[in-house]
């Protein structure tokens, strides 16, 4: 169902590089490839429907509004949210987190208040809080990562004694591949009286996620990592919280009324969607949701777990290679590693010559790399279209890299 049989759904995977090298795409944690139906949905929108949303009375405006709102409804349904007014379109996960910091954070955090993050966070869930700290003198604390690349839940317990106002963490690590026990963390944080924000950028694309069941107060994710286009992401928020928060950006669509004296904000979700939104992208996102649903997130998750463990075992056999993060049974298809004596940039460059796309660097997690005491790592990240053959190609490529340096 997934893997081999769906490769033809992704036109880009048929291309070659450097004349005759087949593209082996192992950088899906950075962005996923797009299936033909997503590309066609956006193409059809511009060919047949293009008009602004929530404004016109004419046929095209009505159709584009309907398609835009239908996408929102399908996205809500996909992540277990009944009421789509809790689903706000943003540019991406980063913007969703910034929205919380600027709106909820500005309104609710006072000097000395604690915001609790984890040592494995992406810069997008660290920097907005550092920016707020400069303005409001809040305290930012980090839950420790253990030597196995997992969150130290005992440390979380002791940090919860500071009564943090917000606990914000990633559901799945973009470096370590760790799947964090989100439900358990949400529950403990709630018991300590904290609001919880979950960064779902690496979880929603790869596993079934039910935000309602998880009971997160805010949840953020991006379309482009889950077969959808760039430039569109989601912020989920509980209705009461979103209602009480001030608007993020001001402009069209987010207002009910403007006079020479002032303005009244629009209802949810439009209150947080200023200006003409990314309409074609929302429609493409909807098509991506349909595509993933047709395959089933359970099947995708199972496929990736199998791939991750195949890759883990194969990589472990390469001399001098060290995989970051937890063992094969407790991780997803993100495998970052170091190779003794060879810099990640050189590895990535040499693999590219073989048609293999991996990421090299700190993957927007410099503090985590500091903690691991490595300047950078190489990351191979998998998705539904990858196969065991791709992993074999990677291993072969790595052996060639080692040869160049010996």
């Amino acid at each position: 169902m997934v893997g081999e049989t769906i490769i033809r759904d992704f036109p880009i995977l048929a291309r070659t590089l450097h004349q005759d090298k087949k593209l082996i795409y192992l950088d899906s944690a950075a962005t996923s490839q797009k299936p033909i139906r997503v590309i066609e949905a956006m193409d059809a929108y511009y060919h047949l429907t293009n008009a602004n949303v929530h404004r016109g009375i004419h046929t095209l405006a009505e159709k584009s509004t309907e398609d835009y709102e239908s996408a929102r409804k399908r996205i809500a349904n996909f992540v277990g949210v009944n009421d789509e007014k809790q689903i706000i379109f943003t540019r991406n996960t980063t913007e969703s987190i910034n929205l919380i910091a600027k709106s909820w954070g500005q309104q609710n955090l006072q000097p000395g208040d604690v915001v609790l993050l984890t040592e494995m966070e992406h810069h997008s869930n660290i920097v907005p809080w550092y920016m707020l700290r400069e303005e409001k003198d809040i305290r930012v604390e980090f839950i420790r990562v253990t030597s196995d690349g997992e969150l130290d839940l005992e440390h979380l317990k002791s940090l919860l004694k500071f009564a943090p106002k917000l606990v914000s963490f990633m559901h799945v690590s973009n470096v370590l591949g760790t799947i964090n026990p989100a439900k358990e963390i949400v529950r403990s944080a709630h018991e300590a009286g904290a609001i919880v924000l979950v960064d779902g950028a690496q979880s929603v694309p790869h596993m079934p996620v039910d935000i309602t069941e998880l009971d997160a107060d805010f949840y953020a994710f991006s379309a482009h990592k889950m077969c959808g286009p760039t430039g569109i992401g989601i912020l989920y928020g509980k209705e009461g919280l979103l209602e009480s928060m001030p608007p993020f950006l001001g402009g069209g669509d987010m207002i009910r009324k403007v006079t020479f004296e002032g303005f009244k904000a629009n209802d949810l979700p439009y209150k947080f969607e200023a200006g003409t939104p990314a309409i074609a992208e929302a429609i493409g996102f909807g098509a991506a949701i349909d595509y993933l649903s047709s395959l089933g997130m359970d099947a995708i998750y199972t496929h990736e777990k199998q791939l991750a463990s195949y890759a883990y075992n194969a990589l472990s056999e390469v001399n001098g290679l060290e995989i970051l993060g937890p063992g094969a049974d407790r991780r997803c298809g993100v495998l970052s590693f170091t190779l003794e004596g060879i810099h990640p940039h050189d590895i990535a460059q040499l693999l590219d010559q073989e048609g293999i796309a991996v990421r090299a660097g700190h993957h927007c997690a410099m503090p985590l790399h500091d903690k691991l005491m490595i300047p950078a790592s190489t990351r191979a990240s998998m998705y539904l279209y990858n196969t065991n053959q791709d992993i074999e190609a990677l291993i072969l490529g790595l052996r060639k890299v080692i040869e160049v340096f010996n």
Partner: protein
Amino acid sequence: MDDLYREIIIEHYKNPLHKGRIEKSDYGFEDENPLCGDHIHIDLQVDDEQNVIDAKFDGQGCAISVASADLLLDSVIGKNIEELKGLGKQDILDMLGIELSPVRLKCALLSLKVLKAAIYELKESSDALTE
């Protein structure tokens, strides 16, 4: 596998001639490539006429950045500080003997940027130094 990884580059990466620190350096600077977190420190020692008598680098980096640092320092020993001010991007590319993409160019030019910041005794480096 790739022309980029010529023997000379691998050799200077694996066995750099000028790796280390100079305790009593006359010029020194340290900087990093924010893209990859690589960092490099360069020390220069000069005589009374401002001629370089020793040059060393320290830090972490990819083969391209380490090899270019080593080749660069090899070329500056015996030269006058004033002469070094004229060094530019092309000099590095000539030493490496390869073509580079814009991303990898930053790796190759990191050491030149640090060297220039050192000899101009700047507080902060800038890409403009490597033009």
